[in-house]
């Protein structure tokens, strides 16, 4: 007896066939994605494997000692502190400038007016400038122009050089200029995501535009602003080119104690170790360990910003 289903005289569905083209498509794209993981694992694995054995508390908590190319007795505290300091100062400088620009673009500027378009073009082009160019710009603008100008203004009768030389402040300022676009763009996005109805409600209650920005718009945009800060920190922490001529020192006996001092920097130190060491084989373990510390520090600076953002988001979510 045949089943009642097979007696149906209407057209049958074709049997499923293995589709080689889709399989090839999926396999190729998956391989490309795997490659990303492989590259990351190779970089991290190599550095951890060779860097970890020499990593010790002594290494990160002491100065360079008598031979900064000898892993057994040198330390990298000055570089850790220098990099941390320049990243923090940069964040303090870039956030107000970037947020203010984004507020102008979203809250005040007319959409698509010639002035707005010029600002937007400038932001996009700034994002595409190579970092070595920022380094040269910083040396010319901050160190020579602003720094020497300050010296001339502060002590007009003596030829003192206090600010008119590479310094922690100028390196941080150069990095701030470099990371400005990312802060502007992320802040702008978070400002645009705030419903227009909230601004209108505030204005309709007799708030000025400034009151509306500070009481309604900005509190909502804090997580977005912090995302901008996180991206800026990630970009800036490992950069060497912008600080080459603006503040990083090859060697300093003392830690910097003011904004106009030079500083030693982890990324720059990696460059020195890999190009200036008298004996490459002897320096290699030191190089690995230094690179490991640079990675961990960059990661740690990011983590701090991510935790701050998570805390702010939690507070905002209580109000949603």
């Amino acid at each position, binding site marked *: 007896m045949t089943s009642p289903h097979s007696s149906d005289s209407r057209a049958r569905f074709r049997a499923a066939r293995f589709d080689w083209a889709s399989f090839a498509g999926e396999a190729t794209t998956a391989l490309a994605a795997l490659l990303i993981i492989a590259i990351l694992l190779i970089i991290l694995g190599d550095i951890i494997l060779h860097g970890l054995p020499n990593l010790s508390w002594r290494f990160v908590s002491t100065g360079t000692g008598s031979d900064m190319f000898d892993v057994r007795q040198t330390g990298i505290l000055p570089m850790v502190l220098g990099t941390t300091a320049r990243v923090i100062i940069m964040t303090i400088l870039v956030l107000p400038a970037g947020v203010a620009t984004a507020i102008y673009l979203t809250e005040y500027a*007319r*959409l698509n007016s010639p002035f707005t378009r010029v600002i937007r073009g400038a932001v996009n082009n700034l994002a595409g400038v190579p970092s070595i160019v920022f380094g040269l710009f910083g040396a010319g603008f901050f160190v020579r122009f602003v720094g020497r100008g300050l010296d001339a203004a502060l002590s007009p009768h003596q030829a003192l050089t206090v600010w008119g030389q590479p310094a922690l402040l100028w390196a941080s300022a150069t990095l701030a200029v470099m990371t400005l676009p990312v802060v502007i763009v992320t802040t702008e996005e978070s400002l645009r995501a705030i*419903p227009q*109805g*909230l601004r*209108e*409600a*505030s*204005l*309709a*209650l*007799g*708030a*000025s535009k400034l*009151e509306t920005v500070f*009481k*309604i718009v900005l*509190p*909502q945009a804090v997580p977005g602003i912090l995302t901008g800060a996180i991206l800026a920190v990630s970009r800036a922490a490992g950069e060497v080119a912008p600080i080459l001529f603006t503040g990083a020192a090859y060697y300093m006996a003392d830690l910097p104690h003011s904004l106009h001092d030079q500083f030693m920097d982890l990324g720059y130190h990696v460059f020195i170790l890999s190009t200036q060491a008298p004996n490459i084989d002897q320096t290699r373990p030191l190089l690995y360990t230094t690179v490991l510390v640079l990675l961990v520090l960059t990661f740690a600076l990011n983590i701090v910003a991510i935790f701050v953002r998570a805390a702010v988001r939690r507070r*905002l979510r*209580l*109000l*949603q």
Partner: protein
Amino acid sequence: MADPQPITVPARPGRFIGQSAAASQKLIHVDRLSLSYGQNQALKEISFNIHERVVTAFIGPSGCGKSTLLRCFNRMNDLIDNVRIDGAVHIAGQDINSPEVDVIELRRRVGMVFQKSNPFPKSIFENVAYGLRLQGVQRLSDLQAAVEQSLRRAALWDEVKDRLATSGLGLSGGQQQRLCIARAIAIKPEILLMDEPASALDPIATARIEELILDLKKEFTIVIVTHNMQQAARISDQTAFFYLGQLIEYGSTGKIFTSPSHKRTEDYVTGRFG
């Protein structure tokens, strides 16, 4: 085909058609007002008066300019680029577009409730206190008294009195809209503009808002934009019908809904177009 039945205006005690308008003073005087966005003319030579302590409804098909006109009364159109306004709006005898008028004070005296409820992502208390804080009220006891009074006035107090510190966004749609009304009346405006305040609400929430409007009428002059003919008939004293940026007909709600002078008004209120 039989003539369409006009919507009947429910009789309400203490009011008969046309009486309230005649008895009260004109508060808003619109004088040959035209408005265009770029090349697009949204309002054409509109002239009429809105009376004190009366509910005036603006009706008309989408895009007829009724919301645009409403937003002229508290100068919300200032926020839009490329707006050109000719003619004048006088409120209490003053041309509100003249440079002598402070737009912030204007907006304090002419409150607004929007189509989409838009509570701030702040606590219920802070939502209502927002306008007062802007005016410099700082004493907590003053704020508490004003917040309670406004929430009671907006028929929301009993539902939220135990959770004033929780977010305004945690309320239901109808409650959010009443919160926005409480927020608007907390600063004691003279005029309350309502731009389709119940269009996003279910019938029960809508009925509550309508009751509230009838109650608020004792204190405020209310101008309401609505797409809902029954709603206009139920709550308004005066009705203005707009079509393609023009004021076609303006008169007592009873007359507009029962014996309109214009064919177009009749077609619209009976639902033949629009």
